């Protein structure tokens, strides 16, 4: 039994690789029912009339791409399908390319026009300073969009002066930007805020859900998969749920088995 505890960790690595790869290859579908947290965002966007303005802050970088990019894409599909005007921005320099490509690709798929139906404002630094500046006047914070067009002339921004004029704001975050959006954005300028985040920070967001400081929460790939189910466009996130299930079971078995051995060998130091 001692030997079982001391196996080379690379054998465990092989187990993990298999647990992820095999379910992707054989493909079996598991139902992904939507939780009320994710439904909060879906319902909000679904209730918006055509031509409403939604601001999406892509506050993540490539390190969290696999969790947040599917979420961003699903959200964009929903907005463009419902003919909602999308305004993108980022507070993370590493997120600009990902955000730009997501908006442009999904926008094109629905035949939407840049500047008319959507715009990517690009990157600004200073986090809470950017939020407050946008809360006072969005054209002051972003005089130019990502491609260098003057924002004041953009048809998509017609009727938008400051954060208050957005019908919904969604922050997709890999760091602490949701807290900043709550304290310096939503609470200061009164708008509806939804949040998507990596699973690592997901549990920390529950106090804000309970106090209704955010209308909904998507956490991690699971959140993205639920959103994909809601908009009936299953893609990589839903496909990821079967390996996710298998690998979770594997980790749980490891924990149980490891502790079993630990107690059997007399908990020695």
């Amino acid at each position, binding site marked *: 039994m001692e030997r079982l505890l001391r196996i080379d960790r690379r054998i465990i690595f092989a187990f993990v690789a298999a647990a992820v790869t095999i379910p992707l290859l054989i493909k079996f579908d598991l139902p992904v029912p939507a939780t009320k947290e994710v439904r909060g965002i879906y319902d909000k966007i679904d209730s918006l009339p055509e031509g409403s303005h939604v601001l999406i802050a892509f506050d993540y970088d490539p390190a969290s791409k696999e969790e947040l990019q599917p979420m961003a894409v699903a959200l964009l599909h929903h907005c463009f399908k419902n003919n909602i005007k999308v305004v993108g921005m980022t507070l993370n320099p590493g997120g600009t390319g990902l955000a730009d490509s997501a908006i442009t690709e999904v926008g094109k798929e629905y035949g939407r026009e840049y500047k008319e139906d959507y715009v990517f404002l690009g990157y600004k630094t200073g986090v809470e300073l950017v939020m407050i500046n946008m809360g006072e006047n969005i054209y002051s914070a972003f005089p130019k969009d990502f491609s260098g067009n003057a924002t004041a002339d953009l048809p998509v921004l017609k009727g938008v002066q400051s954060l208050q004029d957005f019908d919904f704001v969604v922050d997709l975050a890999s760091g602490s930007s949701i807290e900043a959006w709550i304290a310096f954005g939503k*609470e200061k300028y009164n708008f509806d805020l939804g949040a998507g985040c990596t699973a690592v920070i997901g549990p*920390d967001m529950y106090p804000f859900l309970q106090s209704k400081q955010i209308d909904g929460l998507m956490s991690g790939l699971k959140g993205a998969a639920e959103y994909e189910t809601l908009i009936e466009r299953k893609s990589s996130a839903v496909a990821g749920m079967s390996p996710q299930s298998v690998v979770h079971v594997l980790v749980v078995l490891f924990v149980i088995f490891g502790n079993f051995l630990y107690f059997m060998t007399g908990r020695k130091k």
Partner: protein
Amino acid sequence: MYKIFLTFILSILILQYASATTADEAGSLIPPADFQAFDTPNDNAKSVSLRWPSSPSESAAAEYVVYASLRKNTPFITEVLRINSKTMYEEGSDSNFHYVEIKPGKFFNKDSDVTGGRSSYFFKLVMMSNSENVTVNEIASATPKGNWFNWKKLNNFIILITFSALVFWFIEHAKKNPNLYLRKISGLDAIDDALGRATEMGKPVLYVHGLNGMGSISTIAAVNILGRIAIRVAEYDTTLKVSNIDPIVMSVSQEVVKESYLEAGRPDAYVQDNVFMAASEQFPYVAAVSGIMIREKTAANFFMGYFYAESLILAETGASTGAIQIAATDSYTQLPFFITTCDYTLIGEELYAASAYLSREPLLLGSLRAQDIAKGIIISALVIGAALATVGIGFISFLFKAS
């Protein structure tokens, strides 16, 4: 041809039906008895508030429409509001009054219409249903003004002033009396035990810094604790290794360890190379520190400061070599991994408390005490507030209302 005819017939039928229902529901409209306009309190000069008592003939089919004008005598043509008559009641008025805020700036271009000075706006209230319109006789007017204090934020302001006073008072107090009581942090005893065991085994002690630089409070606290560990290590005559990822933290740590050895009367035992840069990037740091744990079979590992994803690999490697491990971090996302892999973990603010406990720095002590008082107030408010709310009194929630 027959299609047009059909539509015609249908429309007549529907129209008759529709007008019949509205007539039934609405009867004749009775306009509200009064109509007031005033500057919205606690705001900038952008909005005007309108208030009027409810009319007895309100129904889902009736609407209120407000028209505005810049002059009393010019025709009221700009529609600034259109609401269902059953909505927008004033908070706390039991549906007896309607209250709306209007931003006239959105409808009028001030510069072109008014030459200099503040502009007043005039409002006319009309109650409408499908069959008739009635206008309230009074024309209300108001001038939006900027206000100099937001009275809705008064409780926030009082908290700011009170808390500032507490922080100052206790820092001053701690300067005079550095023996301010702090509860024992049990992790600190565990540190001594771990050092004792390392001495018995004759193996080195490894102190691992987190990833943040000297600007972070976690690192400052970690350095304070390092000083204390170094004194004990010098007394026990064991080897202490300190791994760093930041050059500035490294030079500060070297100073601290050197001073501690001096204080313990063992300046000869200090070896500068034992406080070293392990790497400059996250993953190479993990690889380097893990290598040390495995090669040197360290008997005790300390993880102090702010950690990121590397915490898991570090603590796991340490646990697999059988070392006693003690962690202290305020990085809440990494705490679960330290708790399950280390023998003792100082959670969150306990790190600062431990550092204040050891350093007796008035700044840290005083601030900690002021924060404790603030927590005490919040705890009492929560308990009393919930008790009062249970018996139906909302006094505490009124005091702490965020608006």
